């Protein structure tokens, strides 16, 4: 079922990152076909919390990407319907003891030097920001630039906002890449036929490594499993995105064993979301009572009030993990015509707009808005 050259670019993956790539490419005048073997936001996007964070990022390339994304998210929040639940609520990172608080202050100092707004909150002011916080914490840092979005709705509305420049092909799996005899990329083969375009963007998230292999290149994306615990609907009991200082160390770690640190936020719909666990367990969706127990314990230690309400359900997802904790963004030097936009681990919702913006620039031959060398997919 050849469709002719109706598309300038094929984006594989209808998650947040794929949607952002499609949106900005369409905005640059390109005709885009988005293909996903499942549904919109059916993978990691639908299993996230919608973190738009600068607070957890070390100064460096990922922070620069996050800062650009934060600006783009502000723009998008004006362009997209309010139903995407964009909330510029700010983040509050808290430390249980004085050494932890000192480490937070040091981290914040270095982030401030990189342009992040970060305000130290002494212990006696923590409850002004979060009245339900446990007593006895040593202090914290407030990051007003942190925000939150409902990732599945944001993805859907981003795809819709580009109008008929984006064609969606859902429930269709890419099974191979098409190349001309001279090696030029021509498109993809799917379970339903062929789709032609001179460029293909790999936005397959945690499955980006498999997709890369179809093109004969190696991209070491691995799934890093996480669980989220969901409470019954509540009024606003948690105002910010609140997390414990240990979260940054967990994110930066490469350990395969289960790690948990409390990450807590309310949602406009009412339920409080409780994360975050990280472990390498392949694509195994088996419920882990140990992970859930630790999430609940971490959350109630930080917010004792959560011990008085019910947890209703849990969900799990797979962060697309790359070994150096940086995403792969840009053209693959080993496979002309193929671009990657995957491997954002747990930061993909936040980093999606900047990623899409960069990909659109790459596709149209424009200057990237920042140095994309550190994200070079050929670095592995």
């Amino acid at each position, binding site marked *: 079922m050849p469709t002719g050259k109706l598309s300038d670019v094929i984006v594989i993956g209808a998650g947040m990152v794929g949607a952002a790539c499609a949106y900005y490419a369409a905005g640059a005048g390109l005709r885009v076909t988005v293909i996903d073997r499942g549904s919109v936001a059916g993978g990691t996007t639908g299993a996230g919390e919608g973190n738009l964070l600068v607070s957890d990022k070390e100064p460096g390339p990922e922070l620069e990407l996050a800062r650009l994304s934060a600006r783009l998210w502000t723009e998008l929040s004006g362009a997209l319907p309010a139903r995407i639940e964009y909330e510029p609520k700010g983040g509050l990172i808290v430390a249980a003891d004085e050494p932890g608080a000192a480490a937070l202050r040091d981290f914040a100092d270095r982030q401030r030097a990189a342009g992040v707004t970060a305000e130290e909150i002494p212990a006696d002011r923590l409850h002004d920001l979060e009245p339900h916080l446990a007593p006895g914490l040593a202090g914290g840092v407030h990051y007003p630039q942190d925000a939150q979005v409902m990732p599945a709705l944001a993805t859907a509305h981003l795809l819709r906002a580009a109008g008929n420049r984006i064609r969606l092909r859902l429930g269709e799996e890419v099974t191979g890449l098409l190349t001309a005899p001279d090696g030029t990329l021509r498109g993809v083969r799917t379970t339903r036929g062929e789709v032609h375009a001179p460029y293909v963007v790999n936005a397959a998230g945690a499955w980006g490594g498999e997709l890369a292999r179809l093109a004969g290149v190696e991209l070491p994306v691995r799934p890093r499993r996480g669980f989220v615990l969901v409470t*019954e*609907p*509540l*009024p*606003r*009991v948690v105002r910010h995105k609140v997390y414990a200082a240990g979260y940054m160390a967990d994110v930066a770690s490469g350990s395969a064993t289960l790690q948990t640190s409390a990450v807590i936020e309310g949602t406009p719909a*009412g339920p409080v979301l409780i994360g975050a666990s990280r472990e390498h367990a392949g694509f195994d969706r088996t419920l882990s009572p140990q992970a859930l127990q630790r999430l609940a314990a971490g959350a109630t230690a930080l917010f004792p*009030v959560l011990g008085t*309400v019910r947890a209703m359900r849990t969900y799990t997802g797979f962060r697309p993990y790359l070994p150096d904790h940086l995403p792969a963004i840009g053209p693959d030097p080993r496979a002309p015509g193929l671009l990657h936009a995957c491997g954002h681990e747990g930061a993909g919702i936040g980093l999606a707009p900047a990623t899409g913006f960069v990909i659109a620039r790459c596709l149209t031959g424009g200057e990237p808005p920042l140095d994309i060398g550190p994200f070079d997919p050929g670095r592995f």
Partner: protein
Amino acid sequence: MARTPAELVGAQPDPPFEITFDGRRITAVPGQSVAAALWAAGILSWRTTRTGGRPRGAFCGIGQCFDCLVTINGDPNRRACLVAARPGDAVTTQEGHGHDRLGV
């Protein structure tokens, strides 16, 4: 002549007792669910929805739909169709999620 479920099964319950709904006295019999006692008293709604404030009561009656949530003795989100009434229970209309006092 109207026949009640209790008559149909030949039930011989122990003596009835009182509970209250928003302060109003209602009669219940041992083993009767809160929802059944409220219905028997002609009360069909005992909760308002979170966003629209619309009235809700028993729908499925078998613990599956969670429409019949109500506050019992100050504890919100009890399924009225599953909770057996006990003497002196204070059942109160639940506004929305029932946790307003936790809001900050």
